[in-house]
């Protein structure tokens, strides 16, 4: 049974990580929290759901990412660029955007919960007592792959260097001739593409509804903080921890408090590591 619990945890972690990494990237580059990330997940899921009959599953994922890329640009223009420096306003603006997105979705797709069927839901693989459907296996593998890709992008590409430069210090980056606006836009685009993939990958596991994505985002927050805000590797670690703790806690502690459990863990961690497990760089010149 414990093996099964770990597998469940891994699946959870995967989806949390995708959402969390998107958030953390945006935060790192812009010092702003994207409260509409959960809704980006939702939009991604619905777009994929709509596209599956025409493009097949892989194509649908691509379509979802494409649409969300555009969404990312819109978000950057409406809720982020106007508020650079006054991040609380940006946060509330993204909240406003999330209200808009939910209601647009309710108008476009209606509120009836939709089954997002893929061929991979039916078949499942068993390793001894541990079973997992191909769909969820895909979730794990795909999210791992995507995260690896992002990690490589941040570590080794020139864009990644730009990301890191901007997260270190806007002014210096600007002085180095980096177009901060462009980098920020890209961060949001990639962020919401991540969210799209999360939606498209986990969508088939559950019904999809316009109000989905909230719990995912809350847990993603927990993961980010646990890992250390603005830090991709730390965030992935955080997501892994949160997913596992929830899956284990649900069985051995209580299932009525699942979100609380991850946040309790979070607060405990913060008491000892006030800046998360992998703190972001800070210099306080005294």
């Amino acid at each position, binding site marked *: *049974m414990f093996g*099964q*619990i770990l597998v*469940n945890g891994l*699946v*959870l972690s995967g989806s949390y990580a995708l959402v969390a990494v998107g958030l953390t990237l945006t935060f790192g580059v812009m010092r702003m929290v994207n409260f509409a990330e959960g809704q980006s997940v939702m939009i991604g899921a619905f777009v994929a759901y709509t596209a599956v009959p025409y493009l097949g599953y892989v194509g649908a994922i691509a379509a979802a990412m494409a649409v969300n890329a555009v969404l990312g640009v819109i978000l950057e223009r409406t809720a982020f660029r106007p508020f650079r420096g006054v991040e609380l306003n940006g946060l509330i603006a993204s909240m406003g955007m999330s209200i808009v997105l939910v*209601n647009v979705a*309710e108008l476009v797709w*209606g*509120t*009836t*919960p*939709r*089954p997002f069927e893929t061929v991979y*839901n039916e078949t*499942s693989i*068993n390793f001894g007592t541990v*079973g997992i*459907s191909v*769909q*969820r296996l895909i979730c794990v593998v795909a999210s791992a792959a995507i995260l690896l890709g992002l990690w490589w992008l941040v570590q080794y590409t020139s864009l990644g260097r730009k990301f890191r430069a901007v997260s270190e210090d806007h002014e210096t980056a600007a002085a180095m001739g980096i177009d901060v606006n462009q980098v920020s836009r890209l961060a949001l685009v990639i962020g919401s593409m991540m969210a799209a993939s999360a939606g498209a990958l986990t969508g088939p*596991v*559950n*019904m999809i*509804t*316009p*109000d*989905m994505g*909230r*719990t995912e985002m809350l847990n993603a927050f927990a993961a980010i903080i646990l890992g250390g805000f603005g830090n991709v590797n730390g965030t992935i670690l955080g997501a892994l921890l949160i997913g596992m703790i*929830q*899956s284990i806690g*649900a*069985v051995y502690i*209580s*299932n*009525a*408090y*699942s*979100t609380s459990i991850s946040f309790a863990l979070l607060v405990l961690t913060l008491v000892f590591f006030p800046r998360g497990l992998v703190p972001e760089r800070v210099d306080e010149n005294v």
Partner: protein
Amino acid sequence: MKRRLATLIGALLLAMPSVALAQAGSKGTLKVGVLLPLTGNTAWAGKTNRIAAAIAAEEVNAQDLAGGYKLELAIGDSQCEPRPAHDQAERLIGQEKVQFLIGEFCSSASVAAAQVANDEKIPLLVNISTADQIAGDAGPYVFQSSMQNRYSQQREATLLQKDFKFESVAIIVENNDFGLSFRKNMIDLMQKAGKKVVLDVTQDRNDTNWYATITRIPPAKPDLVIVSISAVQAANFVKQYAEAGITTPLFSDYPPPPRIFERQVGAQAGKIGLVRATFFVKSDTNSPAQKEFVAKLEARVQKELNEAHDVTYWDVASYDAVRLVADAIKRGGPKPEAYLKAMAATNIDLVLGHYEFDDQRGSKPDGLNFVFIRTGPDGSIEVVQ
């Protein structure tokens, strides 16, 4: 439209809202306020309920079922949440000047509306929420025509023992009102019946990941798994239950709406051979009245929302509620005291079944339709009992 515009401006400028006041129902017309979720994640149900209520009102007015009075419906989008429900009850009473209220869908919202109605002395008929004792707790102005949890659970317990052979059960619920009361009642009903409860899980209702819970079922080795989970979540559960390849028979409390649910996870439910309770299911065994209503509503939904709809218990309950109000007016007139007396004396056959109220102003369960249905492998539905 002019008045609506006026409302808008009045609100925006916080100006003298006297302009925004609705003209009270002129002699001969009575306003009935209906609280429904028209936005948010239960709007899909609310939208058809609204149409069902409208149909009822039209029939009442056409066939003069309200003792010479005409009924005019005033809709409030209460979003299945307590705060909007409270404010909408206030609006319908204060602005629209309704003399009667019907609603709401979610118990937390109905509780809110019930408190307002009782304070403002406007009769409310709770037609869909099934939480126990809403009327009894709220006070004399509130009636509840839906079958309350404790009754349906007793029925389920007895029917379960007829329909299944089992010694041990796993009880899995969501922490919402019917889930929690289901858990409490079902556990001691089962123990009374000498069954062993080998697993007892309550899951947070915002947590869509049921795998953790499902993982605990096989080790507990129950003969039967019984769940009480709200409609959407039930679909998630069944999907994940089927995916986990568990073969233990599964019984579900009433929330998943027949056919709509089958359209979502019919294949999986069929694979498990899911059995569940329901207040109403569209089938050949329906009474003529039911068949007529189904035809009427589905046509109307097709026309207005242009979507294929399968009538749900909630639609029927919304229709019956308006008819119940009309019937009480017919017998008692619109004056609250007389109306409430008449409502208490209700004794009428409507689409869902036969309505009577007990001294706690809750409907007596005996007359109401309540059946078990099994989902077939092809996602079809057969009525078990």
